């Protein structure tokens, strides 16, 4: 059996030589630590209001100022990382599982099932990500669990097409025929012989999608369709901050920087992984 790509030294070395990827990985680690340790890191309770200290300028006892309800902006940004991380990780996980399952099934069994399933996948992929996210949110209704499911479903067609492509390329290979002839069932073939071959590509896509998921979540929260207030998310912080753009622009600017850094981190790591796996670039 071939070892998964990330245990093969050449690719690991190629990744570690890529400075952009390392910076991205460091940023992603910081993001994860902030999300996990938000209660310990945040100077104040993100929901604590203070009517005597509304719209305070950054500096002093509130490093990034306060919002229109006197809540500490820094604490809210730190807590906002949790929502982004949870939504990002869970939706990518859902999208990957659903996508791999659908893609493998369609590719392995072929025939009419393949035709219908891949046609639906093509149609879904023809919609812009955000339009499809909006459509799923309309169907599923509001709430964080629905949001995660919606973003996961938006992602799944891409993963399904990738896995399906790999499955089609592999299904007539001799070693698959050989495995079948010695009595391996479909499940065993998929798990032992097909999945290891697409794992690398799926990992690249999932990493890039962490960034996209965080961005889509921010978009939907900004419109008011994501996680509802008072839970702080970067998207709804900007939504609330925009109302004060003329007076206290930083209320909208600071959470945006957080989104940008988080998305940037996963894009940098994803690019690095893809380059590391591309044999042409070695």
């Amino acid at each position, binding site marked *: 059996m071939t070892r998964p790509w990330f245990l093969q030294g050449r690719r690991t070395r190629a990744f570690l030589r890529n400075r*952009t990827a390392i910076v991205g990985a460091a940023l992603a680690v910081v993001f994860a630590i902030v999300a996990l340790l938000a209660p310990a890191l945040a100077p104040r309770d993100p929901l604590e209001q203070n009517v005597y200290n509304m719209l305070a300028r950054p500096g002093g006892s509130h490093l990034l100022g306060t919002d229109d309800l006197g809540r500490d902006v820094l604490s809210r940004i730190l807590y906002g990382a949790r929502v982004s991380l949870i939504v990002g990780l869970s939706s990518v996980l859902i999208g990957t599982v659903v996508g791999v399952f659908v893609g493998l099934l369609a590719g392995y069994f072929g025939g009419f099932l393949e035709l219908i399933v891949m*046609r*639906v996948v*093509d*149609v*879904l992929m*023809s*919609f*812009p*990500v*955000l*339009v499809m996210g*909006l*459509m799923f*949110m*309309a*169907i*599923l*209704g509001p709430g964080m669990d629905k949001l995660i499911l919606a973003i996961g479903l938006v992602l799944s067609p891409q993963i399904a097409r990738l896995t399906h492509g790999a499955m089609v390329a592999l299904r007539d290979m001799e070693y698959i025929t050989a495995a079948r002839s010695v009595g391996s069932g479909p499940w065993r073939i998929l798990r032992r012989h097909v999945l290891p071959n697409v794992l690398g590509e799926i990992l690249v896509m999932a990493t890039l999608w962490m*960034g996209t998921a965080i*961005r889509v979540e*921010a*978009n939907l929260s*900004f*419109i*008011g*369709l994501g996680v509802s207030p008072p839970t702080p998310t970067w998207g709804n912080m*900007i939504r609330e901050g*925009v109302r004060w*753009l*003329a007076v206290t*622009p930083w209320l*909208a*600017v600071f959470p*945006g920087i957080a*989104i*940008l850094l988080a*998305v*940037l981190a996963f*894009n*940098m790591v994803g*690019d690095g992984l893809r380059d590391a796996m591309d044999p042409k670039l070695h």
Partner: protein
Amino acid sequence: MIRYVVRRLLMAIPTLLAVYTVVFLFVRVAPGDPAVAALGDYASAEAVQALRERMGLNAPLWAQYGRTLLGYLRGDLGRSLITGAPIGDQVAAVLLHTLQLTLAGVLIGALLGIPTGILTAVRRNCLPDYIGRTLGLVGLSIPAFYLGILLILAFAMNLRWFPVMGAGAFTDPWANLRHLALPALTLGIIMTSFVSRMTRSSLLNVLREDYVRTGRAKGVGERAVVYLHALRNALIPVVSVLGVQTAVLVGDSVMTEIVFSRPGLGRLMVQAMMQRDYIALQGLIVIYGAFVVAVNLITDLSYGFVDPRVRYD
């Protein structure tokens, strides 16, 4: 060429039908009754029933499917569940604004992205390359709505060069362009990132080809090698990226319209979502699907212009 266009148009029909079918089914599986959603939880049973009757929601699924489809074919998108106004009229009123915005974004992306891509490829691993690539990554990562807010802060509120929101009427070209500038720049910057990245990697690939080495060996100047020989081949994949990214840009235009309070399809769609107007939502999503199908068609046709090897037969 004409035969190819006709055939591609015919091929778009099943795709559009599939788009319609998927959207129709998705909207129908949505939990809750569209009539209840439109009227609110406290509406009387009679009112809900009357609305269902009026909107044809009591008919069997296949009948609704057929009737809606026939309506779409005639250009009738149905009536809003909330206001009862024809959805087609609302779409017609804003469609040009969305088209103008998207087109302007693509144009800015191509005009800025291709030269930056060339510069970063020719100066590979030098300062312009690092700057271009870093800015490109930022452009790929920044959400459109946030970029729009930053542009509003800088150019509309601080410098006061452009209006903050709205869209000028087409009858007043100057006001129209001034209103278009910042939203178009928002989409344009994002598009530039994609295009310059693709131009760079494509040009780098082509510059490794044998014929480029032959050209250099024969003493062709670097300028002629890059611009006359390499660039023409390098631009072929860029055209397809322009097509794919235009479809993505359509999604970003939704957010841009919201941030700049610009009339457009995106704002109509979000409004329909907020009001839970499923009939309007269905029509608007189908329009978005048709838009993407049209963009793909134009992309396929444009291959022939950049690549003479492509024959339409």
